[in-house]
């Protein structure tokens, strides 16, 4: 084996404390080294050409580069080696900059350490084996979990890129929280008007298979080769036959039996219902817990009125399995509520505001429904308790957010904006009404956001009071809001008719369980972890799974849509090639030596190790051995250390290579 050693000065970052010529000279006489040279900028074009030329002229089989951290230029030098005909994995980097020249002042000690580091790399490269990238087939289909605006956008972008999409939404209709909003900041355009066309586009898109009232129950496999099991809950209505005429809804006798969760419990709905008029798909759902037929077997009014015979009481949940190449998670958020929590819950309720016992102390989404034209009050601002038009409304920012004692230390980002919007909507509809907003700091960082808040203050005369509200209690129909005005430096008391709390954005109820089903990490609140906060915000650390919208952290609509398109783009990149190239750093079991104790299978964090039967000539299984699935193995090497007889080798870090590095000390 002929080895080339190339020592870089890195300008003078290395050569200031490491005598590069001397390192090169010492390595030249080292056994196995054919050629050794030092140069000012090894990673520059002339430097790389020097490497390429040396490989060709000296017939080198492997190279060692003494330079900066492999995390910086390992790929550069590997590409240079490949272009000169050497396998990229016969290139070793000795980190002479971050781990040597920059951190030691004494030239002699630094140079001596540099020599030893290069020697370790030489010994390792001698035992490196040529490796090639692993190719794994890619299924050309994307699974989008969550049908809010983020899920809709991701599904549309991926489908428009020509790939099949399976969009799974747990509610009867897509639209998510955006469909509940009245108008959206900062342009005050009506939420339904900008959302419904997108929803219809999803419904009619030939490439999108829409599964509403469904949940993902299992995800198996790995990047490019996922297998998703989806439970389609029984709607008790045959989707092909139903024309969406809505007769069954109007005729259903159980008018006031259940709260409509879409209306945030401000209105009721019958047993058979669609969540809101513009629901997509426009197919109702029968709620077993309320429907008389399931209670006492009688009624069946809907069957009578339905001329297409679409009602099907014995419809059962069905399971669908789909092969998936990439997954985009867009499950969105939920609002924190102030009710009294169990002792062990990670959140605390708001006893100061009455733990939710006052009907006219509502949250942001409830106010959206009150302000929305299709809402319970047809757009008129009326308070839930007695339907009166409130003369004085107090809005409170940061209810739960930015508050360690309630268990939520982060800022929920969008409340400053939607509270200003709420105040504006109120003032537009009730001109002589008074709107007070208790705030700590207004965070209006988006485009046209600050101007929007200024407009609320200057044109709509919304009174901003800087201070926290300490207590709310009801006194003969009025809600006494006790707080402080920290700028005026005195306590404040307002007798409000309605109080709207801008409660924190927290992840969906079962986000942690879903994360475990998919196999992606999540933080202590239940938001899903991105691969890198700055550089890889829409990718999860699990390869092939992308994140969009508020399931990753509090997001407003523009950001959710941007993230959704980014995630769609990442998915299409993954799906654009027929096979997937993966780093060859994976483990391999020597099946002759494996004793079948399967400790490796227990420790493998990715479940990449399977039991493989070894048969003798006449097909009888005489032993079971561990087999590592090259596609799933991420190359962590935990199995190699757990294997007692050391019969598992990790490519790139095999026993001989590590041994050689230790021996060269």
């Amino acid at each position, binding site marked *: 084996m002929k080895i080339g050693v190339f020592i870089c000065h890195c300008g003078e970052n290395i050569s200031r404390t490491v005598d590069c010529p001397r390192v090169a000279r010492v390595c030249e006489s080292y056994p196995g080294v054919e050629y050794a040279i030092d140069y000012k900028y090894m990673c520059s074009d002339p430097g790389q050409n020097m490497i390429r030329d040396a490989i060709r002229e000296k017939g080198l089989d492997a190279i060692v580069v003494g330079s900066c951290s492999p995390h910086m230029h390992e790929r550069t030098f590997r590409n240079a080696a490949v272009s000169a005909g050497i396998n990229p994995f016969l290139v070793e980097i000795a980190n002479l900059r971050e781990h040597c020249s920059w951190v030691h002042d004494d030239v002699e000690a630094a140079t001596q350490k540099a020599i030893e580091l290069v020697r370790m790399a030489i010994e390792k490269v001698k035992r490196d084996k040529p490796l090639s990238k692993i190719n794994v087939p890619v299924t050309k289909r994307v699974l989008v979990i969550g049908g809010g605006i983020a899920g809709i956008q991701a599904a549309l972008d991926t489908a428009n890129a020509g790939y099949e999409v399976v969009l799974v939404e747990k509610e009867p209709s897509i639209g998510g929280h955006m469909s509940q909003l009245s108008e959206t900041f900062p342009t005050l355009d009506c939420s339904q008007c900008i959302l419904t066309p997108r929803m219809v586009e999803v419904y009619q898109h030939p490439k999108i298979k829409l599964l509403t009232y469904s949940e993902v129950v299992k995800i198996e496999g790995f990047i490019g080769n996922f297998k998703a099991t989806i439970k389609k809950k029984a709607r008790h209505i045959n989707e092909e036959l139903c024309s969406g005429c809505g007769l069954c809804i109007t005729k259903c006798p159980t008018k006031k039996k259940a709260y409509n969760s879409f209306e945030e419990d401000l209105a009721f709905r019958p047993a058979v219902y669609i969540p809101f008029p513009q629901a997509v798909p426009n197919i109702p759902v029968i709620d077993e817990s309320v429907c008389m037929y399931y209670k006492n077997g009688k009624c069946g009014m809907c069957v009578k009125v339905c001329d297409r015979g679409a009602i099907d009481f014995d419809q059962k949940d069905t399971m669908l399995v789909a092969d998936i190449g990439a997954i985009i998670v867009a499950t969105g958020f939920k609002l924190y509520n102030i009710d*009294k929590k169990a002792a062990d819950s990670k959140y605390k309720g*708001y*006893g100061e505001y009455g*733990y939710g016992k006052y009907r006219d102390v509502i949250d942001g989404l409830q106010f959206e429904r009150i302000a929305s034209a299709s809402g319970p009050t047809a757009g008129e601002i009326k308070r839930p308790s007695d339907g009166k038009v409130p003369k004085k409304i107090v809005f409170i920012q940061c209810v739960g957010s930015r508050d360690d004692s309630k268990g939520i230390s982060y800022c929920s980002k969008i409340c400053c904006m939607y509270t200003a919007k709420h105040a504006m909507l109120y003032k537009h509809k009730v001109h002589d009404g008074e709107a007070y907003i208790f705030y700590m700091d207004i965070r209006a960082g988006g485009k046209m956001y600050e101007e929007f808040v200024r407009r609320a203050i200057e044109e709509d005369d919304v009174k901003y009071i800087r201070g926290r509200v300490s207590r709310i*209690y009801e006194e003969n129909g009025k809600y006494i809001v006790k707080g402080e005005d920290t700028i005026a430096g005195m306590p404040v008391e307002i007798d409000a008719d309605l109080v709207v709390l801008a409660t924190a954005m927290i992840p969906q109820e079962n986000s942690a369980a879903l994360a475990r089903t998919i196999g992606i990490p999540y933080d202590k609140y239940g938001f899903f972890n991105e691969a890198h906060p700055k550089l890889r915000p829409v990718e999860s650390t699990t390869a092939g799974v992308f994140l969009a919208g508020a399931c990753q952290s509090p997001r407003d609509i523009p950001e959710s849509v941007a993230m959704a398109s980014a995630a769609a783009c990442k998915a299409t990149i993954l799906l654009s090639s027929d096979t997937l190239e993966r780093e060859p750093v994976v483990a391999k079991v020597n099946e002759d030596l494996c004793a079948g104790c399967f400790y490796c299978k227990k420790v493998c964090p990715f479940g990449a190790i399977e039991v493989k039967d070894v048969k003798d000539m006449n097909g009888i299984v005489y032993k079971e051995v561990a087999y590592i699935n090259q596609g799933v193995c991420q190359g962590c090497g935990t199995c190699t250390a757990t294997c007692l007889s050391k019969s598992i080798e990790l490519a790139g870090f095999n026993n001989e290579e590590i041994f050689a590095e230790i021996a060269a000390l």
Partner: protein
Amino acid sequence: MTSMEEVIMKYGYYPGCSQTGSAKEYDISLRKVIEKLGASFDEINDWSCCGATSAHVTNHKLSSALAMRNIMLAGQQGLENMVAPCAACYNRLVTSQYEISKHPELREETEELLSAKFQKEINVINILELFLKIGINKIIENRKRELSELKVACYYGCLLVRPAAITKFDDAEQPVSMEKIVESTGAKTVDWNYKVECCGAAHSIARRDIVVDLSKKILEDARSHGANVIAVACPMCHTNLDMRQRAMKRTYPGHEELPVLYLTELIGLALGMNEHELGIDLHYINYKYTDPVPDNTVA
């Protein structure tokens, strides 16, 4: 209500300075009620001041040392638990013990200051926990008369159920334990809004005007919800709500008096004792329960 495990009847007792001074009647009524219910107090000998807010404000080590001295004395006296009727004492004792167990360096300094080792954690109980431990039905069993005419506003004040992290026996914002105890005396309780609002506490001397305003609001809110008496369980609250009503008449002409009783006095009345025995006649706003004590009064 205590569960089936045997009901503890023997308690350590840390009276605290106000019990021997301005809140004498609280101490008298407490001892009599405990005796009537068959429990017994074992006063901590050589107990000293708990430091209250003055020490707590000036020096953290001083305040924890003052409080811990009493806890160590109780430990040395072989006591398992310790009742501290005054809310401020209760708060200082419980918080100091909580911090000592959390911060080893504070523990060493305190042990050094007191030149004694802190071995045993003492279960410090406030007056509400005491009656919950003894058991509401114990009161009902020994009740001589039902105070059915009383509509009581239970006033907890700011310290009795806070801080929430330490006083875990009731909700810090919407407490209900005093209501349960008062209802056992046959009296009715009202749902009102100022249960845990501040009465002005130590401002009573330096800024009497603040105390008058705050206490006035508390009294008026109780009255507006139909209460005809206020029950308290802290000498500071009692002083501000009871004694300051005279000053209220000057700043708020037409102020009607509203009697303020200690929780123990209320229970004492229900157990058949009269106002003099319970020291109610020491209050500024004198109060007599309407129908006389049933004939089998015990002298």
